[in-house]
Each structure stands twice: as C-alpha cells, then as structure tokens.
C-alpha cells in the first residue's frame, strides 16, 4: 500500500513536470512561464520528497519559488516589447482590443521537438540504474524530462529571461537525480543558494534590456 502511494506520488510528480516544462518551452507569455515554473518546483518537490525527508525537500520548493518570484518581479517591470517577440507574433485587433498570437508553426515545431526529446528520455531513463544503483525509475524519468526539455529550451533561446528559466529547469532535473544519491542538508542549502544566485544574475541581465528599449 505504502509502495503504491509512493509510486502514485512519483507519477503525479512526473506528470506535473511534463506539463510544466512543455508550457515553459511553448509559451511566450511571461505570466504563463512564471506560473509554469512555480508549478514545476511543486513537481520537483513531490519527486524529491519521495527520497528525502519532507522538511529537507521543502528547501527545493522554497528556493525555487523565491527564485521564480525574483524573476517575476524583474520581468514584470519590463516593457511589453521585451516580454513578447513582435517579429514572431501576429497582432489581431477587435474593437480596440489587440491580442498577440504566436504563429502555430512555432509552437508546433517546439512541441514536436519536445516529443522527440521525451522519446529519447524514455529510452535513457531506464538505463540510469547502471550509473545510479537503486534509483526509482519514475524519479530518473522526471529528472531526465527536466534536463532534456530544459536543454531543448536553452538551445532555442538567446534571451536572458528564457536562458535563466531553462538553466533553472536543467538544474532542477539534476537536483532530483542528485537527491536520489545524496541526502545532505549542506548540499541542499548550497544548491538552493545557486538557484537564487542564478535568478539574481537573471535580473541583472534582464534590466539592460529595459534601458535599451526605453532609450
């Protein structure tokens, strides 16, 4: 019964991670990105709490959420020219209300790319036990989904905000994998500091974009 509930918990975490990383990859709206990142850390917390005591696993959740909020504050204060990519959106106007829509080909391309990465992850995740003995298959699956889709996201972007988000995703995947092999409060704390550091550096990199647009 206990194993079943642990298995369901891991499955829930993996499902949450799949949907949120897909949302991060496909959406260009910063609000969707921020919400997906917040939920993604929820998935990471679920996965990590299957191998770590809940109080230590909470470090991942709290650090992730703080990093996301820091990024949200930075990107939320930027002009809309930075949050969207005008050259790649279609503007629709109706009775004074304008909506920016993405060309469907862009989203489709990213989705298909994500499907290919997910197929690779499915074949790789089962072999992780050779490298990390005793790791639950679901845990390695969740970790590799984060790393794989994070890498795809990183490869498709050149903007500071998106780069930092994809790096946070990759590191979250690594942290899930590493949690399976090492339970150390100090490592957890240092990795949390790194997440926060990345978010802070991200705000520094995002701000010059503002001045550039305002000028």
């Amino acid at each position, binding site marked *: 019964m206990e194993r079943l509930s642990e298995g369901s918990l891991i499955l829930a975490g993996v499902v949450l991670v799949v949907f949120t990383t897909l949302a991060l990859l496909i959406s260009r709206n910063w609000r969707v990105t921020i919400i997906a990142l917040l939920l993604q850390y929820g998935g990471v917390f679920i996965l990590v709490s299957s191998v770590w005591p809940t109080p230590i696993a909470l470090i991942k959740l709290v650090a992730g959420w703080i990093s996301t909020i820091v990024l949200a504050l930075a990107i939320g204060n930027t002009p809309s020219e930075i949050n969207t990519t005008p050259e790649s959106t279609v503007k629709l106007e109706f009775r004074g209300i304008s909506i920016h829509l993405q060309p469907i080909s862009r989203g489709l391309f990213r989705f298909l790319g994500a499907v290919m990465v997910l197929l690779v992850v499915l074949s790789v995740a089962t072999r992780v036990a050779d490298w990390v003995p005793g790791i639950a298959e679901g845990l390695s699956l969740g970790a590799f989904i984060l790393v794989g889709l994070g890498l795809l996201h990183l490869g498709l972007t*050149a903007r500071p905000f998106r*780069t930092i988000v994809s790096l946070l995703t990759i590191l979250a995947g690594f942290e899930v994998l590493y949690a399976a092999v090492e339970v150390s409060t*100090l490592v957890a704390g240092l990795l949390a500091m790194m997440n926060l550091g990345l978010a802070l*550096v991200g705000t520094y*990199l995002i701000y*010059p974009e503002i001045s*550039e647009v305002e000028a």
Partner: protein
Amino acid sequence: MNAPLIWILTPGILGITLLFFRHRRRLIVLMGMGVALILAGFAWYNPIGRGVTLGPLSIEITDTLTFLGRRFLIDAADAPTLVMIYLGVAFWFGGANIARAHSLFIPAGLGIAALLTAVLAVTPFLYAAILIEMVALVCTPLLFRPTGRGRGVLRFLSFQSLGMPFILFTGWILAGADLGPLSPQQITHAGLLLALGFAFLLGIFPFHTWIPMLAEEANPYIAAFVFFVLSLVLSLFGLGILERFSGLVSYTGIFTVLRLAGSLMAITGGIWAAFQRHVGRMMGYAVMIETGLSLLVLGAALESPGNESLLGLLLALVLPRGLGLGVMALALVTLSGEALDEPNFKEALRFRNIQGKGRRMPIAAGILVLALFSLAGFPMLAGFPVRLVIWEGLAANSLLSASASFLGSIGLFSGALRALTVLVMGPSEDPWQISEAPGSIGLLLLGGFSLLVIGIFPQWFLPAFVDMTNLFTILGR
C-alpha cells in the same frame, strides 16, 4: 587563527566591504592591490603550521577550518599556489583603472580569488563544483556590458552551470573510493563525467564557443582576467583530483582523450586565429590554443609518469600566459578608445575599424602584436622558452601532438602578422604620432619589457613554477 580564515574569509569579507566604496575607483584599486599583495607576501613567508610572532604576541596558524561539518584545508605545501593566485590577482588589479574595468571588478575580483582558493581547499572536493558555479555567477555581471546583447556571457553562464552537475556526480562516485576500491565500471563512469565536466568548465572542444564570443563582446581586460584565473584554478583543481584518485590516471583512455581534445583545440584555435578579422576574438583563439597546449602536456605527463618535467612545464605555462593575456587585453582596451563604452563596441576591434590605428597609437599596436607573438611562442619573448621545451617533450611522446601544438602557434602567429599589417596600413600622408594616455603608455611599456625580460632570462622566473610539481607527489613522481 587558521589559514582558510586568512586566505579565504579575509579577502571575501574585504571584497564585500569594498563594494560600498566601488565608486572611489582609485581607492579600491589601491586597496585591492594592497590586500592581494599582502596575502601573497604572507603566503610567501608561509607561516602555516608554524605561527607568527608580533612583539609579545604569538599566533599559531593552523591549516584547517571546519564549517558545517566540511573541512577547508590549506597546508604549508599549498603556499606556492596561494602566492600564484594572489600575485596574479594583484597584477590584474594593477591595470584595472587604465583598462576602464567595471566598478565591481576589484570587489568581485577579491571575492573570486577567495572562492577559487576555497575550490582548492574544500574537502570533500565535490563541494568545489558548487563554488566554481558561484564564481561563474560572480563573473557574469563583470562580463556583461549593459550596452551589448550579452550572448557570449549567457553562453559562458550556461556552460559553467552545465559543468557543475558532472563534477558533483564525479565527486559522488569517487567518494565511494573511501569505502573500498572502485570497480572498473565506476572508474569509467567517473572518468567520463569528469571529462565532460571539465570540457564545459574550461571550454574544451566542442564546448569552446563561449571563449571567442566573450573575448569579442566583454571588456577585453575582464575577459582575459576570467580566462586566466579560471584556467589556473581549474587546472590545479583537476590535477588535484587526478593526484588523489590515481585510479583515474590508470584509466588508459584518458591519454587518448586528452591528446585528441588538445590537438583539436590547438588546431581549430590556430586556424580561426589565422583567418580572424577581429583582434578581440583573436585573444579568444589564443586562449583556446593555450588550453589545447595544456591538455596535450597533461596527456603526455600522465602517459609517462616518470617524466615529471612535463608536469612542471604545465605549471610554468601560467606566467607567460597571464602576462601575455594581460598585456594584450590592455593594448586592446587602449586601441578601442572611447568605443569601449558604446553599444557597438564589438565592431571597434574589427580589422576595418582598426586599420591605420598603429599610426596614431604605435605603442598600443606594437605591444599588442608583441603579446600575440609571445602567446604564439615567438623566440626571445616570454612564451618561447616554455614552448620550446614542451615541443621537444611532446615530440618525444607523440609527433602528432607536437605538430598540432606547433600548427596552433603558426596560426596565431599568422593572425598576429595580419593584425600588424592592418594596424600600420593607411594613407602614406597620415603622420605617425603617439596619442595614448601617459598611464597606458607606462603600463604597456612595462608589460612589453616584462615579456622580453622573461623571454631572455627565463631562468630567473620559471624554476619557481616548475618546482610546484612537488605539490603533486604521485603525479609528479
């Protein structure tokens, strides 16, 4: 009192303190240099394990600091490394004002030195990976120019962040060695992960793209500082891992991997440098050639353990590399002039924009070419004596490695000749004049003179670096 408190916490805290005075540029340059020189001098005096007597006061300096259950260990044998790190940092701080470095350069530079010392001191070593990532995070604001797009900086940050997990996992696998002997499979895994981690961190082929990008878009002086300090400490860190886990050295594939990666780095760097039309990027390719050469030397040194002189030469490369990069970066900053603060700074160092600048800034142009020649290993300059012995040693081991390294140098030399031609090219009626600032002239001439002195009298400087082989009792045997 303990050594980590002096060489890690003190510069770290002083770096944070100097943040509050960052707008008083002259003051913080003097203070930063002073602190770095004092720390280097103190390391030279080497009181670790002995103690210091100040009048009636007698302070014993122990070698260990325990923090949250982890140990930071700096013993007497590490003193030469500390001297090298803090003298290097003082050297770079010296030119900060003239190079118009970022106002955070001195405070962050002290922080970087402290973190990098911690990288070498922390036990177990897996924590070093996280400290290296912190160094990358501190470097990012320094390298990022608000007026630029920052793609190179983003790539630098991405690759440094991607390297960290590999080192952490290597640390986890190798930690098993304390409990019992590792299986061949575990050694293979650890070797692969370590190689990938260092490939990301050091920018080894094919993860080298951030090096020329960063050299093109960041302030050349800060970029050169980051290239120098990171490569120095990561090399020592890597040697430390190989020294401690000699099983990795016996993993025979590592020689071939190092030789292949080194050859590719040297050859690609040389080819790109030869056809390059941007002198900033040329510095990036010079760094690639240097990294390639270091990998080739390391591969050869590990392949023939009795040949400890090769390992010494790897450490001896540090001085000509640091001096060459520093002098070249200073010359690049001088040549770029006011364009350094403009959005299109990347364009300022293209051949079409520096054409004929040698007539208006002959000292900067001359020293730039001299530094490039030195990095290429031209006779009578700082890079030559070490390279000559390395080429001899490499040729005895593998003719292919020696040829790859030599080709890299030829490529860089060709690039330097093309730069020289472009710099002096111009209408014949253009008069020759010296228009560099007096401070720049002084530092550039001092740098050029040092390149010559080290090249002509290497015996005065290089033995101290070669002697550092004693740090590695197993590898250097």
